[in-house]
């Protein structure tokens, strides 16, 4: 039995081995074997993760976590960082999502990327990503977590810029890396602070020390700095600007990295470090406020996009906003539940969108789509299921249960009423943009030819995820529907429980009714604007407000003016290095002196005589008077 537990390390090691094999021998391996290696390693990881999940439930490990030390990373005096893994229920959920959805996306990619000349490179990066993400969620030490954290950032960079021959993609990739790095600086300083104050970066020891310490300014500051890191990675305001541009990468990448897994690393970080935030209530509230602001801004921006992937990108930002809202309101398990359902339906939506994009020969403009309902029935139905889940259609979709849990717990939290109202408004907007997208793409008249059908490798993940997007909602039912809490009781082995249980059933039903009304209103409005007459609305993007929203509320514009331009202008002006002037001046000064001295050697006798006479007089005067 212990043998299985000791296999924990293979969960991240398998995809890593896949990466190494592909990176070193990729050019000597046939395509078929490349996909076998890539898909095989991740699938094996997924199987192992399922075995661990099963064991977790049937034979819970000691201390509710599987642990395994790997090697000593830095081990000197009291500064020791062990590369050790810890699988508790929070990590378990993350690991399951990363490996299972990761495996499906790998499978999907074998068809999506089939014609790409850099097939091997793609799968190598994808495998590396899965390995890094698993390191992130399994790490037992903040610095080791940071290894995974930066590792996923690197893979995201490599994959956004995957088609590097177009400089636009390279720029998007660099932007993603740099913007998230700004967050990383905060996180790094936060780690310095935590290590300085507590003398350790081992997460469990650290959190134990945090709980005994209670409130202090250190914790407030540390929470703020960690939040900075989380904002960058998870694309929250004001560092959300990179995520929409990240859509430059191949669609499976968007599905895996920029929707289902990596972008939720910030959510994971805050959930993982929850005692710090609990002891810094002001910052925790800030988390909620940032979430609320983000979900609103990103939702509005999604309304004005033409590119189907950008709609989904803004929708991701917005949904992570809900998760932040939940974290900030202390609804820890609700945040993770929404992460869980979102990962499934957003991966589904992205992959279905990818199927459309491939079918239409890389057309991403929704206004050039339309009427695909009949021509691509499978994609239509799976996309619809994903959309309904995103829009949180009551009772039958996973998104409903998770979003409802968040809204309910936000309402019952302290100062939660206003945040709840924002959340409901967000629910309306979500339904609105989701169905705008559906009506534009699948209804109306067909505008583009279909070049290629959807093969099995792409269809299978769609169907599985569509099933998931419905079923997983029942893992967690609200009190009024029987109070079935499989998910939250599992995850609350690790995360603190919520206090909303004392609320009455009538309140719960009432809140549910309000959000349901918002969702239906959103769908209805979308139908009236885009459903009946999809043609006329194509020029809506020309209005100033739409332009503002389409450009992401001008954040890019502002950053360009305020930071990027001045910095590059300054650097360009100083390319020759101003300090050099100092030395050039020194050289010219010496030269000038040398030349003027040289001029005294003129060869004219009378000047020499005069100089000698002058010198003699000065000499005599000095002798006489000094």
């Amino acid at each position, binding site marked *: 039995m212990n043998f299985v537990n000791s296999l924990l390390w293979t969960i991240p090691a398998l995809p890593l081995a896949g990466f190494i094999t592909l990176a070193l021998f990729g050019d000597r391996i046939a395509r078929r074997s490349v996909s076998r290696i890539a898909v095989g390693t991740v699938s094996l990881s997924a199987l192992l993760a399922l075995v661990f999940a099963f064991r977790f439930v049937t034979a819970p490990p000691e201390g509710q976590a599987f642990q395994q030390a790997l090697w000593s990373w830095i081990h000197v005096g009291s500064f020791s960082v062990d590369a050790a893994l810890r699988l508790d229920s929070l990590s378990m959920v993350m690991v399951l999502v990363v490996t299972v959805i990761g495996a499906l996306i790998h499978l999907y990619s074998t068809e999506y990327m089939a014609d790409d000349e850099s097939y091997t490179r793609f799968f190598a990066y994808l495998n590396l990503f899965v390995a890094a993400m698993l390191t992130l969620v399994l790490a037992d030490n903040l610095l080791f977590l940071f290894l995974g954290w930066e590792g996923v950032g690197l893979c995201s960079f490599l994959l956004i810029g995957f088609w590097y021959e177009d400089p636009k993609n390279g720029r998007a990739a660099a932007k993603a890396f740099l913007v998230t790095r700004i967050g990383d600086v905060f996180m790094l300083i936060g780690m310095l602070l935590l290590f300085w104050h507590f003398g350790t970066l081992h997460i469990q020891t650290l959190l134990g020390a945090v709980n005994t310490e209670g409130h202090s300014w250190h914790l407030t500051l540390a929470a703020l700095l960690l939040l900075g890191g989380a904002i960058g990675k998870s694309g929250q305001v004001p560092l959300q600007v990179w995520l929409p541009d990240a859509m430059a990468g191949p669609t499976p990448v968007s599905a895996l990295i920029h929707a289902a897994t990596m972008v939720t690393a910030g959510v994971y970080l805050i959930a993982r470090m929850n005692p710090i935030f609990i002891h810094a209530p002001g910052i925790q509230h800030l988390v909620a406020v940032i979430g609320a602001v983000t979900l609103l801004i990103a939702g509005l921006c999604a309304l004005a996009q033409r590119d189907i992937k950008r709609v989904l990108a803004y929708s991701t930002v917005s949904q992570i906003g809900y998760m932040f809202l939940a974290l900030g309101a202390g609804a820890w398990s609700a945040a993770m539940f929404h992460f869980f359902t979102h990962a499934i339906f957003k991966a589904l939506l992205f992959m279905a969108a990818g199927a459309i994009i491939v079918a239409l020969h890389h057309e991403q403009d929704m206004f050039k789509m339309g009427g695909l309902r009949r021509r691509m029935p499978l994609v239509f139905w799976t996309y619809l299921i994903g959309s309904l889940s995103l829009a949180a259609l009551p009772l039958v979709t996973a998104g409903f249960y998770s979003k409802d849990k968040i809204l309910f717990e936000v309402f019952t939290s302290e100062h939660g009423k206003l945040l709840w109202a924002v959340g409901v408004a967000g629910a309306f907007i979500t339904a609105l943009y989701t169905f705008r997208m559906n009506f534009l793409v699948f209804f109306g008249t067909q505008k583009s030819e279909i070049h290629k059908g959807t093969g099995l490798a792409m269809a299978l993940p769609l169907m599985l995820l569509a099933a998931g997007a419905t079923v997983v909602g029942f893992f967690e039912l609200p009190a009024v529907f029987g109070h079935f809490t499989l998910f939250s009781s599992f995850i609350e082995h690790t995360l603190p429980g919520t206090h909303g249980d004392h609320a009455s059933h009538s309140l719960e039903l009432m809140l549910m009714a309000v959000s349901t009304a918002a969702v239906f209103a959103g769908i209805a409005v979308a139908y009236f604007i885009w459903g009946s007459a999809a043609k006329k609305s194509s020029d809506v993007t020309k209005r100033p407000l739409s332009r503002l929203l389409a450009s992401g509320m001008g954040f890019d514009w502002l950053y360009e003016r305020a930071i990027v331009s001045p910095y590059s202008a300054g650097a360009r002006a100083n390319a020759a290095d101003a300090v*050099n002037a100092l030395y050039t001046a020194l050289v010219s000064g010496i030269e000038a002196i040398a030349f003027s001295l040289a001029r005294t050697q003129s060869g004219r006798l009378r000047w020499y005589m005069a100089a000698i006479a002058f010198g003699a007089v000065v000499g005599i005067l000095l002798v006489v008077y000094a």
Partner: protein
Amino acid sequence: MGLVSWLIAMPFLTMVAVVLVPQKHWRAIRWISVVGTGIGLLLTAYITYRYWIEARNDVDFLRTATLTKLYLVERVPWFEALGIQYFVGIDGISVSMVILTSIIIFCGVLASWNVETRTKEFFALLLLLVTGVFGVFLSYDLFLFFMFYELAVLPMYLLIGIWGTGPKEYAAMKLTLMLLVGSAFVLVGFLALYHASGLNTFDLQALASIHYSDRFQWWFFPMIFVGFGVIGALFPFHTWSPDGHSSAPTAVSMLHAGVLMKLGGYGALRIAVYVLPEGAKAWALFFMALTTINILYGSFGAIMQRDLKYFTAYSSVSHCGFVLFGVAALNLMGFKGAVLQMFSHGIMTGLFFGLIGMVYGRTHTRVIPEMGGLAKVMPWLATCFYIAGLASLGLPGLSGFVAETHVFLGGFFGNPWSNTIATRVLTIVATLSIVVTAVYVLRGLAMVFQGPINDPHFEELRDATLTEKLSTGVLVATLLFVGMLPWLIINLIEPSLYPFINRLNGVAGNVVAGL
């Protein structure tokens, strides 16, 4: 002759062998060089092993020592009247620097495989320079130290002036003059120590056992620190480095940026801080501020450079700032970070300059905007370039991250002699470098390797040859190794740093492990 002397003599003997071979057999010359430096590499491995066997039992002793303990010592009187001796040995700091030097020169020789003009002189001078570098890292007599130091600096003038590119005479002159001014400061400092001690010896250990007056230390610490700072690219004395590096031939840039610049950090720590702890305390905050400028100014300077070598040289200025920043932190974490950063930056920048040489050998241009899309035709070189770039922007898992983390922790912890608020603010300012470094690294690499291929000639270029793969592969492997198992090298270094801390604290046995 002991092991350490053999290590110093090895490149010299190789040089002699090289000189004896006529130029027409230039192919034999490079084989001799590769074998000679290869033997040096093995010798280094053996010395490291011997050092570790002997030193690991002394960890507890060093915790309470105020003088560093040397191993494999050889001591022979030389000019007895002046108190000059041939005094060599090794400690943890030396050993890490020697490993670095051996790796870089081995890879540097491989990277110079195609030098066809005056091959003999080129390799001879290169090996002479390395003799000097080994000598500096291994001697503990200040006179001997200075002699080797000059031996390392002077061949540079010829190497750049003859085999260089671009405005090479200007660059060679500028570099030599500035470094000589630096070494003049160092020499004055050494002589002052010699006189002030009244011991009539240049023995570093003996000089360090004296307590100099605070006033003396206040004057001479900055003199020695700045003197070494010049070669360590301390702002505002860094301007020789971009010109020098960009004009130098590949192996020379590798060796110079990779190893020679480390002489600065090494000397600042080994001599300035070690012998003059009171001076260090008084000046630490000032130099910390100056090196913070270093770190950011270097990144700022790198971003808009058009020449790939200028680009890398400015990045070196920034990274060498970390070395001196760690030294100025005046605590164990900072010192460790400084030594690690010397090692890591040495390998990384050696790799950078090696790769630039290889790319230049193919494209015949180093102007960044003229390149583009090269990843398609030279995937191996592009991958290595990216790995070096990622190491330089501090990606965890590669060596740069470990070093920078130590340096940042060191700065953040501060020391009792500098205002802690100030050191913390400076550290936080310095951490911004991880963003600005990423900015120029990613931008630069994207312009060279991504995008469409600019020049149709580039389509026919070949990827790395076998020797090039070996040379870059060794360096990449080292970056990864130090990134994943840094404690191996930290354990070599750390015990030798305890005495430094004890000296600063003025109390023996006060080393708080880890801090």
